[in-house]
């Protein structure tokens, strides 16, 4: 390779592009189970390279032969995570789509806010899932299909203690209540607060595999939490909930602020 200013510039550009692509992939995989696996694969890769350098023929042969099996295993075991990462990658929202929330969206927000306020005050357990771009039909199928207009009265009725559908999640699709009593996948994260029960784990679980906006009210404490992309914010204020709504509906230029509004768990 001949070194000229031009080749140096091209090499720097080459490295920068690859580094940026890897960085974005790492950010996508951050906080997912796939990240731990990636670390394992990296260690294997380093071992493979070192064994090649040191001429450890047998170790190098075993590692070399196992790559195809490892890659196939990754694809099978981490299918949900990989799907979620690819979906997030393809979702990329345009600035041009951003504007003000529509009248219908404002009505939904008001109904949800009222539901959360009353539920929090009366310590009624709530698990409310707002469907995003990723479809939640598999989860809707596990509950009772309602397809009804959204109102705080109906939502509170659904979550009311001992009501037949109070266990499980209510899924909102567009401006309709799609279903109630839906079963959500539980998170497999181990580093979450042990005080959080099944409702919160289900909220984190569903938000890990889709772009839904999830609200939870604790039955024990009445604390309102908001969950998105696997991150839970507990004790979130109305002002910060508004930011989440704005971000969800693509209405505001600002992202929901993590600090100040609630405690990240």
């Amino acid at each position, binding site marked *: *390779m001949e070194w000229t200013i031009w080749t140096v510039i091209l*090499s720097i550009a*080459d*490295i*920068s592009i*690859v*580094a*940026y692509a*890897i*960085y974005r992939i*790492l*950010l996508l995989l*951050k906080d997912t189970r796939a990240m731990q696996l990636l670390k394992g694969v990296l260690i294997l890769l380093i071992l493979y390279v070192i064994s090649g350098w040191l001429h450890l023929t047998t170790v190098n042969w075993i590692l070399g032969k196992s790559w195809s099996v490892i890659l196939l295993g990754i694809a099978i075991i981490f299918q949900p995570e990989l799907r979620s990462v690819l979906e997030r990658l393809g979702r990329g929202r345009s600035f041009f789509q951003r504007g003000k929330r529509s009248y219908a969206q404002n009505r939904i927000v008001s109904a949800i806010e009222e539901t959360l306020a009353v539920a929090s005050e009366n310590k009624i357990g709530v698990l409310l899932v707002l469907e995003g771009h990723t479809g939640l039909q598999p989860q809707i199928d596990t509950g009772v299909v309602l397809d009804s207009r959204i109102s705080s009265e109906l939502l509170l009725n659904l979550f009311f203690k001992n009501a037949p559908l109070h266990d499980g999640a209510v899924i909102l699709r567009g401006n309709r209540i799609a279903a109630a009593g839906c079963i959500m996948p539980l998170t497999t994260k181990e580093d979450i607060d042990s005080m959080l029960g099944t409702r919160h784990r289900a909220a984190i679980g569903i938000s890990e595999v889709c772009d839904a906006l999830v609200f939870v009210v604790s039955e024990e404490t009445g604390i309102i939490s908001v969950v998105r992309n696997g991150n839970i914010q507990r004790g979130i204020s109305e002002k910060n909930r508004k930011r989440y709504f704005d971000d969800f509906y693509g209405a505001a230029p600002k992202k929901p602020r993590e600090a100040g509004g609630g405690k990240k768990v």
Partner: protein
Amino acid sequence: MNQWLRFLQRKNFIYKIIALGIALGLWLYVAKPFPFLIP
């Protein structure tokens, strides 16, 4: 030690370093700019 870790975790610094390291390693391996280093 904890301060270091916190520094590295801030603004995804650690991920930037890892990404740059992998990219540089790949470039050294593929482009072979220094044949005496990596033949």
